[in-house]
């Protein structure tokens, strides 16, 4: 692989501006440099085959049929030095502590609103605020047990928090499988470099879930609730259930009895369930309380949860903090609840409900990324510098009609990393999604899922929109063997 011509106009994760590899990536870059184009192509092919055989897929519904697609996997790992990761991990833990305190406060005394740090108006209009959760005190005071936070790096090298996915974040199975693939393709590098392992996640997740059991002492019965095979993340649901040795259940497998306990229907009869890792959105988990036509959940589940007979992860209502407008207040939350300065900065945000900031957004829309508060998957947003006048006019109208629901951020010059192309290594934009597990202590994955836009120049990394993935290496330079 020839690095001589590799150039990028922004911060690159592997290569410095002078064309030299960053210290943590030096071994990797040299190693790849020693491989011929043909050897690279062979390894890319091997990686694709392994991914296919292992069944690393996501499901796309098209032409009335389900199609399993493999997530494009790029061979070249993204490298993060351990020194930087220690700081990032601390920043993520700090965010999670503040976010869980915030959610608990919102469904409790709402002190942060009374103290005028967080505007009451935002709460009133939040589509993710669940009245049914008010007054509930979930085990350990944790609401968001599993969080996937998206981090991006700007052109100057600063790592920012872009959003915190507190509802049903996905992608962790790709992180685990990408590592399996990388190990098979680069066994030599794993022998000589100090690449920190990631495979602890399923055990950590299991412990996080088990800690919630309403029947401490016993071996808890834990189930993963999936919307079913038609869900795009079904592969991940099955993968995690298998990796943890827990039941993979659908709504119809569960029922809530008169004793408020939740049971699974088994061939032996009803079996009580203690903890449910639900991968079904809040609004569909209980037709008695939310969407009455939902068949994805189980009638009475909220009753069971409120009675403390079953634990739900994430807790219903946790999404109140997963809102791109609420996101802008995280630094204030950290200050308010923890009396600390944020370790990880937020991507600067302009909130359209604030008249002054709205005016700025409307006047500078062509420079900004405009996002609706509650969409995920990269849908419904406007990338100013790439937009047409017509699109911008449409968004201006949307913002004026519903300012609470919109926020804008400057268009970052997202960092890049090289991917394998027919023309040699070529830079592509990427982000990073570490997964954070909260129980009494907080666990952060080593690195996370690196999502990469496979299309040249594209800033959209979502798998639903043509994004791919890379393995993510946190490298300990002090431990490197010479």
């Amino acid at each position, binding site marked *: 692989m020839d690095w001589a011509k590799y150039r990028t106009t922004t911060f690159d994760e592997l290569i410095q501006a002078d064309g030299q590899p960053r210290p943590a990536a030096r071994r990797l870059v040299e190693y790849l440099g020693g491989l011929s184009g043909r050897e690279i192509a062979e390894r890319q092919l091997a990686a694709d085959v392994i991914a296919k055989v292992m*069944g690393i897929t996501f499901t796309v519904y098209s032409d009335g049929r*389900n199609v399993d697609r493999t997530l494009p996997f790029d061979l070249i790992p993204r490298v993060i030095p351990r020194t930087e990761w220690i700081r990032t991990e601390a920043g993520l833990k700090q965010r999670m502590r503040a976010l869980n305190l915030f959610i608990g406060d919102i469904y409790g005394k709402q002190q942060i609103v009374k103290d005028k740090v967080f505007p009451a108006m935002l709460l009133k209009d939040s589509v993710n605020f669940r009245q049914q959760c008010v007054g509930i005190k979930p085990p350990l005071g944790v609401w968001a047990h599993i969080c996937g936070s998206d981090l991006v790096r700007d052109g100057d090298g600063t790592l920012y928090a872009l959003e915190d996915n507190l509802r049903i974040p996905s992608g962790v199975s790709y992180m685990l499988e990408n590592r399996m693939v990388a190990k098979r393709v680069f066994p030599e590098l794993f022998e000589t470099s100090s690449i920190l392992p990631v495979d602890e996640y399923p055990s950590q997740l299991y412990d996080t879930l088990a800690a919630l059991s309403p029947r401490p002492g016993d071996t808890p019965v834990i189930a993963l609730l999936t919307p*079913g*095979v038609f869900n795009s993340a079904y592969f991940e649901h*099955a993968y995690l*259930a*298998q990796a943890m040795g827990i*039941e*993979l*259940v*659908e709504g*119809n*497998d569960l029922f809530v009895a008169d004793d408020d306990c939740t049971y*699974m*229907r*088994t*061939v*032996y*009869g*009803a079996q009580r369930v203690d903890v449910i890792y639900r991968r079904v959105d809040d609004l569909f988990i209980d037709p008695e309380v939310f969407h009455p036509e939902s068949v994805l959940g189980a009638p009475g589940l909220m009753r069971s949860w409120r009675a403390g007979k079953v634990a739900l992860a994430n807790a219903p209502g946790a999404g109140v903090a997963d809102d791109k407008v609420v996101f802008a207040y995280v630094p204030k939350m950290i200050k308010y609840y923890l009396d600390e300065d944020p370790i990880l900065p937020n991507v600067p945000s302009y909130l359209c409900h604030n008249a002054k900031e709205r005016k700025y957004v409307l006047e500078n829309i062509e420079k900004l990324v405009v996002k609706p508060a509650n969409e995920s998957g990269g849908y419904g947003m406007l990338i100013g510098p790439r937009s047409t006048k017509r699109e911008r006019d449409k968004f201006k109208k949307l913002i004026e009609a519903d300012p609470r629901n919109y926020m804008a951020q400057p268009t970052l010059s997202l960092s890049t990393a090289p991917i394998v192309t027919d023309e040699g290594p070529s830079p592509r934009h990427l982000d990073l999604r570490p997964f954070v597990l909260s129980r009494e202590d907080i666990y952060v994955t080593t690195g996370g899922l690196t999502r990469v836009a496979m299309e040249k120049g594209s800033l959209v990394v979502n798998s639903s929109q043509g994004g791919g993935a890379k393995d993510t290496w946190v490298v300990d330079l002090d431990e490197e063997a010479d």
Partner: protein
Amino acid sequence: MLSRVADNLYWFSRYVRRAENTARLVGVGSLLQLDLPRSVRFAWRPMVDTVGAGDAFAELFPSSGDDATDAEVVRFLLLDERNSSSLRSSVDAAREILRGIRDTLPQEVWEAINDLYLYIEANGERGVSRRYRLEFITRIADGCLKVSGLLTANVSRDIGFQFLRLGTAIEQADMTTRIIDAGASGLVTPRNEDDREAFQNMQWMAVLRSLAAYQMYRRHVRQRVTAEHALRFLLQNNEFPRSVQFCLARAQHVLPTMPARPGVDRGLNRVVGLIRNADPASLAAKNPAGFMDEIQVHLGTFNAALADGYFRG
């Protein structure tokens, strides 16, 4: 074991076995057709009724199907998605079920089913033509047996496996009665009354062949094929794995390994009794169709008891 998963395992193995039998049935019809002289008329229609697709067929070919060509009927039996018992429908159903329980069965099973599915997608239309039909059918039957083989060789004997075994046994018992039914309903009608017996025996030979039973029949029975002997062999033989008796005995072995459900045992014992007390000679003398229907109805009742006992939870 979740009730839904048990339900799916049971039906997965039923659909795989159904697909195999459907392929065999069409294969034998095709062979029989080739053996018959021009003076004898071959009717596909009883086969359509056999697989329980009479109504769907009547809707597509309203004038009782007489005008339907050989290719049209075979396409209906093998490929038509409007026919819920077509080969394709069975394979699709098995595959869709498996999609939801992929974590329960070995990866190779998924690959084998997917392979069948892709093969039908790619070669189905070609397989309808007379030239390639037998090749197509053989490949399908082999593919189904590969799935059975993988299940037998590679799946742990836990309770889930018992549901797989039960599904295969019940489906085979059911299909065997249906194939007997088709044979007895007269696939061929000789124009000359004197030829009737000769052609009927040919028909029973075809029935045995479609159940891969001809060779075993020869070894066990050592008499030429007649309706009475064939019926006795296919209903009551204790050693041939596709005989109804054998399948029910297998189901009787499985039930004690599962949580006790008296209703399920009762349902099965009723069918076992019927088969044990059947008199092949008198069945052969009149039309056995009524008896076969009775067995199928009781298998349906057993099925309902099974669903009540295990699949609702």
